[in-house]
């Protein structure tokens, strides 16, 4: 059984989410910070008249912030009827994966990661990490 994952890169690792829940990928938009919200909340953006919450995946995954001057990209996903956008380093292709290649995360993975990463697909020469979108946006 195969399915399609939309991929993106965060801190050198490739992550994938089900392509059906991805609405679009776009360049970074100006964000309005939300004081007192969770640390992963990167702000609100105006997506063609819709106010969309942006979650910084680097923060959710417990990774260091992007170096100065590097612009992140946005992946807009649909979670439970709401639109949310994920800040990623780079947007990749849509990849077809086989469930047979899936493995749960190794026990050595950090707790922060374990919460968000459902497992990995073994691709040629690299691993594609399956991101749990619901967890990632539960900032």
């Amino acid at each position, binding site marked *: 059984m195969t399915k399609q994952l939309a991929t993106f890169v965060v801190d050198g690792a490739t992550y994938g989410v089900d392509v059906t829940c991805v609405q679009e990928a776009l360049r970074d938009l100006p964000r*309005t910070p939300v*004081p*007192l*919200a969770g640390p992963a*909340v990167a*702000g609100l953006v*105006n997506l063609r*008249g819709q106010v969309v*919450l942006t979650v910084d995946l680097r923060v959710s995954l417990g990774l260091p912030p992007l170096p100065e001057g590097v612009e992140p990209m946005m992946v807009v996903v649909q979670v439970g009827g709401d639109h949310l956008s994920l800040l990623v380093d780079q947007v990749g292709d849509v990849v077809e994966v086989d469930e047979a290649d899936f493995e749960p995360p190794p026990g050595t993975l950090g707790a922060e990661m374990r919460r968000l990463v459902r497992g990995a697909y073994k691709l040629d020469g690299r691993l594609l990490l399956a991101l749990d979108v619901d967890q990632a946006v539960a*900032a």
Partner: protein
Amino acid sequence: MEGVVDGVDEIVREFLVESHENLDQLDADLVALESSPGSRELLASIFRVIHTIKGTSGFLAFARLERLTHTGENLLAELRDGKRTMDHATTDALLRMVDTVRALLAAIEATGGEGDVDVEAVVGELQAVLDGPRAAEPAAATDAGRAAEAPARGTEGEPAEESAQAPREPAEDAAPAAAPPRKTRIKRIAARPAAAAVPAPDAVPAPDAAPAPAPDGADRADGADGADVAVAVASDGEETWTPTFAFEPIAAPAKPARATKPAKAAAAAKTAEVEVPAPHAPAPEESAPAPAEPAPEPPAAGPPSPPAERPPSTAAPTAREGAPEPGGATSRGAVDSAIRVDVAVLDALMRQVSELVLARNAIARLVEGDGRPELVRAAQRLSLVAGELQEGVMKTRMQPIEHVWSKVPRMVRDLAASCGRQVRLEMSGGDTELDRSLLEAIKDPLTHLVRNAIDHGIEPPSFRTANGKPATGVLSLRAYHAGGQVVVEVSDDGAGIHTEHVAATAVRKGLRTQEQIAAMSPSEILRLLFLPGFSTASSVTNVSGRGVGMDVVRTRIEGIGGTVDVESEVGRGTTWRLRIPLTLAIMPAVLVACDGQTYALPQSSLLELVALDDPATSVEHVHAAPVYRLRGDLLPLVDLRQVLGAPERPAGAGVVIAVLQADATRFGLVVDRVLDSEEIVVKPLAAQLKSVGLYAGATLLGDGAVALILDVPGLVRRAILVESEEEIRTDVAAAAARTTSQVLVVSVGDGRRVGIPLAAVTRMEKMPADVVEVVGGREVVQYRGAITPLVRLPRVLGTSSVADGDELTVVVATRGERSVAIAVEDIVDIVEDDGTRSSDHGGHALVGSTVLKDRVTELLDVQTVVADADPHFFDELEDALVGVS
């Protein structure tokens, strides 16, 4: 009729929707009718509603519903024709009928069928009223007269040709259908509703009926043969009903079960030919009276006519507007110009217009820097049109508040009867319009307030007369626009609310202490009614019943961005006032800047703006809490930067205080700058941000940026302001000094002055010396319902006080959870201690001394004093209490 079968669910749904609307109107009309029994207009309106329901229920084969409304209609027909006057029993029976109709409709809505709702009891009751004495017994002799009268009326209201060209129903179809077994009964029942128009059904086959529809009915009658009954429909320009062919549904449960009374009479006549005077539903295609085409099954003709091309919905406004016959051209306009639109469509339109407004704002900004005049002109035009469009779309969602009020007369009548009150209802401003969703939201709170006013506001008649008031109380509902909001008032001229009772209840329930109450103004005490927890069953009796569920009312109203307050005068009455925004989607707001970000503050919470050039000099402090003197009153301040965790504002920067009102709390929000005031479009926030509790939503600014809308009640909760305003006020008032400071200076005799850190002081008060009691060899006083040890400071410090009179001056100090009442000679002042001239030197219970206002003042060690009062005081007390119990 396949189309009808296909669309049957749709038809039933439409039927339910319009029937519910009509029933609300009916309740109001019936009650109004009781007070003006002669009103033909009201009777016609009521008759029409019941008739419409009856007609459609027959068509949809809801036999019981039809039977019920049919009987009710008979009664109404007699009333309308003046053969019977409205009395209490009649109203009761009719109201009961409306209730049962409602129950049936509810069953239909839930199950698609009539369920097991029993109609026989009500039918019996209606019949009993019908069979009872009435004003004018319809003797056979009057039949002709009545019949003659009918067409005569027809002439006033309805052009003859309308009637003339009316479709003729194939009598053959109808007659056999209304099978004979029930003939006699049919005749009897049919007689009354038809009375105005039908020449006495008793006389149905009789030849004397034929000439009856005199003057302009004559040509029609001519067309019929001698035995025909010509049914002239009375159409006095107002009323209409639908004489079409009908059958008892029992007799002919097949499809065309559209029963209507005159038709029955005709059917009973077997050879009847009925003139349907006009296409009653003023359908778009008026020239094609519905009954004309579907000849074999005459389902149309009535206002509820659902078949064929035209959607049943068109009939609904018709019936309500009260101008259903095309002949009566007078009110045709209103009917034809109204259509029923799904709210979802309006919501979608509203959203799109909001987007348009935002796009317009963006373009307006872009154009600002551009000199091209044609571009500027185009942008202005766009701006204008977008503005008008926005207003127009908003209007489509507006409905008069009458929609909610229509239930009130009935409710008042029932409640007044069950509570034994006499109540006159006055309503004004029913045409004030509100957004539909808001109307929906105020329905329950309003019902609650009306209920409360009758139940607990207006006194029983005997009580009223004994107090020199008219026996009949007045309950008035008022709605009007004020300051961009809609104000809805519910007032009664009843007993009013005793603030003492409210206060006592609040104290008893532990919501406020006696001291807090003492410092509250009457209006503040009344606002306690809205506290959650105030409303319990016992308060129903103790506080003249007020306060039941008022917190629920408040929550609901605040949930839609409104406010509620109450005014009451004992013996004169009570007024509850709801302030509701016009719409939820767009609201006026003030944009403020804080730490480089823009936030929107709802205008509805904003009282005023105060700009401060140098906050360092004009902001004072009570304890650590910043306050601002606004026209002599201390206004607690909340710095938005602090709330949001933003960095401190650079020194010397000016600020603006936005004076906000949330519920009972007034406070000043300190922001960096005020940018603008504009109408903002409220966008919902993602669920993740709702838990922050500080934002009511987001909006888009003209430049496309997102701005957060601050939730003022949320701000209050964040800053824990709810109690502090009161406390600040009472502390300062008690000190009788408008200066804010750190140290309370008291005298203890022998000219010695002692400073008590103000932070430790809860209250200062004077109390009679005889309140001091002795427990276990120690002096105690009762303070805030608790037993508090009393320390006489002059004794502790070894001075001889001169003020050992009848009155004690007491400073209540608190350390941790313990309080101690410190008796002093006098309170001197509250001063600022900058700590520069203090020394550590001190005696027992003193931490040192300092120079305050050029006098050496010893500083009291509150901890020691409390400890001296007895470290185990509370423990012992508890033990003692346990021992006693």
